[in-house]
């Protein structure tokens, strides 16, 4: 009796995780299509896709546990890896886009560009003083 109740609760959890993850990943795709700017698109892609794939992989993990009784470490490693590498990849893409001259949408001031210019000026002065 208790085992049956636990199984029903785990099945409901599988359905909730799958539906929530699909909602998050679909919303991330709509955001990538609709946002006006590379940086806002990265904001949608990194957060929404990570949350969505984490939900779907947790749902698949619980499904495998209830169906076969196996604890699949590969799925846990998969979403841990995604949570580690998605910020790194989005940071690399945003830095590359800024170097290629992508302007932020609707802002008047670019503080990162000002910091880069100040650093270059400081290095030139150091070379002159040597």
């Amino acid at each position: 009796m208790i085992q049956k109740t636990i199984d029903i609760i785990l099945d409901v959890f599988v359905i909730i995780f799958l539906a929530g993850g699909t909602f998050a990943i679909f919303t991330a795709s709509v955001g990538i299509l609709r946002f006006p700017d590379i940086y806002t698109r990265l904001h949608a892609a990194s957060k929404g896709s990570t949350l969505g794939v984490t939900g779907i992989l947790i749902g698949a993990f619980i499904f495998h546990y209830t169906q076969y009784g196996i604890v699949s470490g590969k799925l846990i490693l998969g979403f841990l890896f995604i949570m580690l590498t998605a910020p790194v990849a989005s940071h690399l893409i945003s830095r590359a886009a800024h170097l290629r001259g992508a302007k932020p949408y609707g802002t008047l001031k670019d503080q990162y560009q000002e910091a880069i210019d100040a650093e270059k000026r400081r290095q030139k002065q150091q070379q002159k003083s040597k």
Partner: protein
Amino acid sequence: MSLSESGFATIIQNVSIICLIALSVSILLLIIRVMRGPTNADRAVALDAIGVNIMAFAALLAIILITPNFNDIVLLIGILLFIGTVAIAIYLEKGDLIDTEDD
């Protein structure tokens, strides 16, 4: 086999099929962004998101086909996706570094 007893098997299968259809629509939206993106960085973002969607696709296929053999594929797609994204980003960055003659 607890699912066949509790009667949730068909519900989970139907939810997985609906999720697969939603993921297909989402991949189509991302392909529009890949074709239309103004710069190459937009295409890199959309390709990264397509790779994440394919990871979720493999996990859902494992639920629909009731097999645990797709779990390796999920991990493998994740690792290859990270390497590909880093390669694209470093290529975009180096192209500009050569132009500015920084050294």
